């Protein structure tokens, strides 16, 4: 079997592709829209905006989420901001500039046409969100305010205090609620998609678990939109919410959707360091802090002095030293790696020596404590609540943590996966960030996909595909449901000794140690081996108490961890097969003399797309070659 990896990039000049494509797309006439039903799984920025917009257009939308309300999707936690090419500060920004920064930031591993479209619609997103009442930060004149994020030399980031994701999601949610009231969206909370139903080669429905009653439910539709977020929790500890998982994507992968670049993971440089075995998550300290905070380590190894007692000339402000033109705003992959290098060399600080300082002393001296509090007050409070230390007085201690996954299900220009009718939006797809995502670009992408891309491309699909009638009584539904039932009873029947989270934590160690910030052949092979054994142990010795017929939190975790245990192996395999370093994927064998990532454009200027071939056979690696017509492939430099 071979995948059809036609990217369907429209022909013509870059700047005209999207308009041309929209013009050429087939439309569903308004009266016919109400004849179509669309399933939208996930209510984050991607799913929320898609559900609201499709319902406004007249489609019948069935919306699903794990949390008890669509407003609680993981997007809510985004802090720092959202990019757009408005050029309000008049500092030379443009659509082309945002496009270029994003392609370069992604280390030339994303599709030009998708990224250009993203930059084009970015401005509409800000307009849309303002019209929905999102209280973005303003200047005294009443105009919208901007700040800077890593990897950019302009201020293009819009924000709402340190709660930008919350405000955007509540905007999308309010749009959804409006359509719920009109009866165009049926919203199902506390539901988890357990499988995709494919009939005659097309995605036609899903099987979900009602998390309260434990019942399995079947839903049929004309198309399925997967907006289920990223899979960073495969590392156990990450900045993601607890329910963030890979299962929906993974089940679709097993039904024939290609999984692209699974190893492309973003490790965010500024998070609160790990401090104990019992720890359940890592907390992000927004990148916006690097606008004013300076990152440093003591020049002396194993320096035990308090940071305040270390004189200026004994501090190594290593980002400013190595990257004078971007300084503390070097992109995430680069900044994270440098923090790791410093700690590996013995300059790390704090009780674990796995931390560096993020220091606001100079900014407070320059602008006053009140100004700094105005910018970051809530983040400083959050830091103090978790660590018990006051960052106005002593520098923050930070360390990189898993944050985002650039990899995801492969989609074409229309956001359609290799399964017709299955569209994938937001962090769940692989599309726009290449091997490294720039800060404030995920919110932009999620909303671009949901508000401004899918309404056009979905109508083109519906209007041009013959869709025979299906019902939930079809065998495909029964079979899929039966398979889920079997897995459930197997999990409940093992009655082993070890709780699910123990396996998850062990998997996390393999992932962090060998598939994390630095990867090499020997380590990756060790990870593959270790994960396989761990998976076997899981299926022999996991203890999932209770039964199906109620709210069984251990069962919910178990099905997700079972999938992580498979995905982790694929990530290691993907990293092993990519014999180059690019963006967040740093293969230690491939680095320049000054420890920067060394790409191999001859061999690897492609997306690796994995095809599932069965439980006991190896997946196949396909390629989508990336064609660069508008940017010159260059060594990425932030010096």
């Amino acid at each position, binding site marked *: 079997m071979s995948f059809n990896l036609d990217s369907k990039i429209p022909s013509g000049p870059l700047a005209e592709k999207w308009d041309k494509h929209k013009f050429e797309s087939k439309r569903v006439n308004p009266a016919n829209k109400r004849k179509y039903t669309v399933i939208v799984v996930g209510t984050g920025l991607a799913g929320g905006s898609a559900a609201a*917009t499709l319902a*406004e257009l007249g489609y019948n939308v069935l919306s699903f989420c794990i949390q*008890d*309300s*669509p*407003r*609680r999707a*993981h997007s*809510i*936690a985004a802090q720092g901001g959202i990019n757009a090419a*408005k050029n*309000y500060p008049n500092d030379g920004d443009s659509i082309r500039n945002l496009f270029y920064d994003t392609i370069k930031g992604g280390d030339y591993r994303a599709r030009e046409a998708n990224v250009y479209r993203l930059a084009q619609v970015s401005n*509409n997103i800000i*307009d*849309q*969100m*303002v*019209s*929905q009442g*999102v*209280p973005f930060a*303003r200047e*005294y004149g*009443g105009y*919208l305010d901007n700040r800077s994020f890593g990897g950019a030399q302009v201020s293009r980031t819009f924000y709402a*205090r340190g*709660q930008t*994701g*919350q*405000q955007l999601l509540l905007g999308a949610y*309010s749009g959804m*609620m*409006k359509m*719920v*009231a009109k009866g165009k969206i049926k919203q199902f909370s506390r539901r988890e998609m357990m499988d995709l139903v494919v009939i005659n080669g097309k995605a036609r429905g899903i099987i979900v678990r009602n998390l*309260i009653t434990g019942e399995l439910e079947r839903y049929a539709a004309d198309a399925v939109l997967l907006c289920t977020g990223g899979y960073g929790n495969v590392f156990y500890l990450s900045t993601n*919410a*607890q329910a963030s998982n890979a299962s929906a994507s993974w089940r679709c992968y097993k039904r024939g959707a290609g999984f692209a670049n699974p190893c492309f993971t973003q490790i965010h440089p500024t998070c609160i360091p790990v*401090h*104990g075995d*019992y720890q359940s*998550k890592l907390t992000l300290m927004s990148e916006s802090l690097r606008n004013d905070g300076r990152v440093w380590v003591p020049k002396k190894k194993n320096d035990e002095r308090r940071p305040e007692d270390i004189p200026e000339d004994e501090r190594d402000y290593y980002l400013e030293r190595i990257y004078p033109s971007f300084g503390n705003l070097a992109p995430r992959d680069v900044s994270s790696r440098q923090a790791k290098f410093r700690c590996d060399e013995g300059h790390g600080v704090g*009780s674990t020596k796995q931390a560096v300082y993020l220091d606001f002393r100079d900014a407070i001296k320059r602008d006053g404590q009140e100004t700094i509090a105005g910018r970051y007050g809530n983040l400083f*409070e*959050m830091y103090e609540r*978790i660590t*018990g*230390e006051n960052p106005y007085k002593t520098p923050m201690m930070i360390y990189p943590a898993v944050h985002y996954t650039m990899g995801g299900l492969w989609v074409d220009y229309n956001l359609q996966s290799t399964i017709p009718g299955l569209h994938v939006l937001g962090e769940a797809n692989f599309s726009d960030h290449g091997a490294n995502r720039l800060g404030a670009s995920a919110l932009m992408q999620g909303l671009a996909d949901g508000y401004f891309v899918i*309404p056009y491309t979905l109508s083109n699909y519906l209007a041009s595909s013959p869709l025979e009638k299906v019902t939930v009584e079809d065998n495909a539904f029964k079979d899929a449901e039966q398979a889920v039932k079997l897995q459930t009873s197997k999990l409940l029947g093992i*009655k082993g*000794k*070890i*709780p699910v*989270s123990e396996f998850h934590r062990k998997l996390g160690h393999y992932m962090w140690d060998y598939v994390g910030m630095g990867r090499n052949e020997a380590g990756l092979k060790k990870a593959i081996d270790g994960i396989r054994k761990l998976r076997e142990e899981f299926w022999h010795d996991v*203890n999932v*108490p*209770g039964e199906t017929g*109620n709210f069984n*939190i*251990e069962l919910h975790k178990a099905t997700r961890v079972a999938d992580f245990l498979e995905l982790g192996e694929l990530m290691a395999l993907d990293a092993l097969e990519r014999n180059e370093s690019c963006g967040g994927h740093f293969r230690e064998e491939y680095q320049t003399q000054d420890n920067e990532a060394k790409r191999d454009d001859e061999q690897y200027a492609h997306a690796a797309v994995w095809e599932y071939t069965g439980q006991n056979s190896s997946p196949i690696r396909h390629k989508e070659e990336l064609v660069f017509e508008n940017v010159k492939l260059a060594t990425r430099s932030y010096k």
Partner: protein
Amino acid sequence: MSSAQNMTLNLKIWRQNNNSSEGKLVDYRVENVSPDMSFLEMIDVLNNQLVRKGEDPVAFDHDCREGICGMCSMMINGKAHGGYKNTTTCQVHMRLYKDGDTIVIEPFRAAAFPVVKDLAVDRSAIDKVMAAGGYISANTGNAPDANSILIPKPVAEEAMDAAACIGCGACVASCPNGSGMLFMGAKVSQLALLPQGSVESPKRALNMVYTHDNLGFGNCTTHAECEATCPKGISIEHIARMNREYLKAAFTYHEKKRSEGAG
């Protein structure tokens, strides 16, 4: 981080199998609790102990574990989210407790929030109130340039103060009447403050209040317990603003009815 000693705690936790069964407080003991743990991590430790014994772990709601999703919801020693200033349950850290302490943990209790299991409750009534008007009727795609609507910084800040509500329901759980006026007032107020939202404001207030009252939320009798407990510091001023919008609407509605010759 603190280097204080680990603790042993006595927990009294509400266990209830589902909405139709009886519930009761059950005693548990957890050892080796580090002061750096979060409250929910302490319950994780307990749950892992229970699972190892093949017992049913304590069900509770949580997701972001950083105080923003509004999913976590517990009464700790009789107070919603533990009663610490501007803090959600997931942000409570064990350094606030002492070795040997007894902690009583119960679900949010309110007529509008039936128990799902143990500490998890059903707060879908909040979504229903929002669906009754907590939005601006702007469809996707027609928005004017964002800077064509100028909003003075203080107004934007005040709207943001209101918009910070995480929909956790602690205000409802701590109100003697189980009223939802604070979270609803915050939304009405946010949108009333902004020029984009003010057009629909009176109608919004009317519809939301009507739905609120029908869902089993109680009336506001200005105890202000809600404001004291709210983890996002939402002020009861917003309830006052909502009431003004409501009165405008009630008046218009009444006038309209009269002019239509109702009755």
